[in-house]
């Protein structure tokens, strides 16, 4: 049993990094633009389809396909920002409506381009790592490490660079940041596109682990929002930890309780944490 629990602890952490990268995108976008971008799930799906298409259909090497998918998703993010979200800055309801509309458009585009039939990428890195009886698929481990590095790198960039500090300053006091020379429009667009890129990268890597369909991103954006709330909106590092907590709650819950209600175990964890800490684990109570 101990081995089973340890194994699922590791699996929960791995799955949680996928929730975490979406949560990081959600919390960044909300902090800087004031909207909850539900369409991040659709961007994740786009990244996944691009990665699958470039790898399996075009025949590119997987790492190159991931980079190109990331770039393509970010280009789509630029278009979405300039055409739509630029007009919804700091307006939660309008942003929400636009993002929901964008999900429909993007899903329809994906369905028209690649049909509704689920797709599955060939094995990029087959095999498993066995450590003391614990089994970790190599590709899952690699994806988790990449996502961990990206989220931690984002956190480091936010805390150690001028742009990061500018973003923090803007999140705390937009007017003061503007007066201090922060180009706020550029900052908002940059953060929006970066968040879309995080989702696109998550999707591109996701495609190497699971089968993909036009609607899978919807599940992940909900998990991402759960993780971001659990962590406390505004904390990028916390978003990662929130994602991991959700993943672990689902994995461990499935061992002791029926797996059919796996999603509920994460939600129960979220409710319990919010009861104890209403602002989330790392959130500011104000």
């Amino acid at each position, binding site marked *: *049993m101990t081995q*089973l629990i340890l*194994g*699922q602890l590791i*699996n*929960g952490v791995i*799955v949680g990094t996928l929730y975490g990268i979406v949560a990081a995108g959600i919390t960044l976008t909300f902090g800087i633009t004031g909207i909850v971008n539900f369409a991040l799930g659709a961007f994740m799906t786009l990244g996944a389809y691009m990665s699958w298409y470039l790898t399996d259909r075009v025949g590119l090497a997987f790492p190159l396909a991931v980079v190109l998918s990331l770039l393509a998703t970010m280009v789509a993010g630029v278009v979405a920002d300039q055409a739509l979200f630029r007009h919804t800055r700091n307006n939660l309801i309008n942003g929400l409506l636009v993002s929901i509309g964008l999900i429909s458009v993007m899903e329809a585009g994906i*369905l028209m381009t690649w*049909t*509704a*039939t*689920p797709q*599955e990428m060939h094995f990029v890195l*087959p095999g*498993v790592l066995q450590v003391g009886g614990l*089994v970790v*698929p190599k590709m899952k481990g690699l994806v988790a490490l990449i996502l961990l590095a990206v989220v931690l790198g984002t956190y480091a960039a936010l805390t150690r660079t001028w742009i990061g500090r500018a973003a923090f300053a803007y999140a705390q006091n937009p007017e003061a940041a503007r007066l201090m020379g922060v180009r706020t429009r550029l900052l908002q667009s940059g953060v929006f596109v970066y968040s879309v890129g995080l989702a696109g990268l998550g999707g591109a890597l996701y495609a190497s*682990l*699971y*089968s993909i*369909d036009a*609607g*899978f991103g919807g*599940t992940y954006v909900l998990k991402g929002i759960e993780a971001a709330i659990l962590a406390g909106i505004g904390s990028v590092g916390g978003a990662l930890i929130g994602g991991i907590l959700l993943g672990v709650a*689902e*994995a*461990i819950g*499935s*061992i002791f309780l*029926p*797996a*059919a209600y*796996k*999603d509920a175990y994460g939600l129960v964890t979220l409710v319990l944490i919010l009861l104890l800490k209403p602002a989330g684990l790392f959130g500011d109570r104000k």
Partner: protein
Amino acid sequence: MTTWHHKIARPALRLAGATSLVFGLAGAATAQGVVKIGGLEAQTGPASIFGLMPSQGVRMAVEEINKGGGFDVAGKRYTLQLISPDTQGNPQQALVQAKKLLEEEKVQYIFGPYLTNVFNAVSPYVQQYNGKVLLMGGATGMHGALGKPNMDFVIKTMPWDTGSAGYGSMMVDLLVKRGVKKVAILMQNDAGGKAVVDIYTPLFKDRNIELITEFFEANTKDFTSTLAKLAAAKPDYLFPGYTDTSLYDIVRQASEVGMTHFFITRGSIGPGMKNAAMIDSYIAWVPKYFEQAEKTQPKVAKFVADYKAFYKTPFPYDQAPQCATSCYDHVFMLVEAMKKAGTVTEVPKVKAALLAMQYQGLWNIRYDATGESILNFDVVEVKRGGKIDVTHIEPK
């Protein structure tokens, strides 16, 4: 000299001649009727693995029959008109489409659905047309409706798992012969998944095979935690999911936690073939193993060639076995039944003719007294490395 009589009479005669010609042609045209048939399958979406091939097969048969000039019933020539919307496996959408088929298009013969959730959604509505309509589908849930009052409209084109001709019973016996003592079931937490568990639980228990059952939500992609839990119980075989959409993920992830034996009653051998390097045994009920049948059965070879020519795409060998239900053969069977019944509109007579028939097409198909299909089938086992064993079974 041309008189006024001539001036009027000649054009009048011409007009009369032309009119009689037009009406004569119109009369000939009405002597040829059209029988509308409907389709109610998922042609796209995660469940299209079940619905695409049947809907394509029906379309091919309709084209073939119409190109051949149609068919004669009681001295009148008919062609077929197919109206086949895509349900995408969505029950609400399917219900709207069923209403359109019956109310607007006045269709009396519908092929499909294959999906139990769709059947559950449309059945109460179609029941209002009992005696005037036939709903010929492969849905597992249709079994419970057969022989019930006011459910004469149901014909189940997919064989049933249990009973003397049941493929499921035979497949479980195959496991018994291999000395299997414990099986883990991992099934969708929906109507279809629960129906499968309800069917197979007594089958396994009657043969003293221990069962461990878990369900999963249909949108699940990561099964690792559930599979690890099941693997800890050390089952001899895993009996997972009922759609390839889930099977690809399950088989791949199960093999990673050391589960390498699979028992499949709904789905293709595709997931087994894809993961052939990591599995030991993937036993699947396959209505027909087309790769082999194409080489030995002329009708199958013709069907494969016709499909490629018609759709101008490679033949989908993994999905083709789904043509065992509400597909190519079944359109020809319906036409034969109409001919024998001497009517295209009196549904009870057509149904009676259909149930009395034994048809030899791609499959040898007949129905039992309740309206459930019995047909010959294959059990395919994919072994490590991709080696394939095929067993042909002809139910008594």
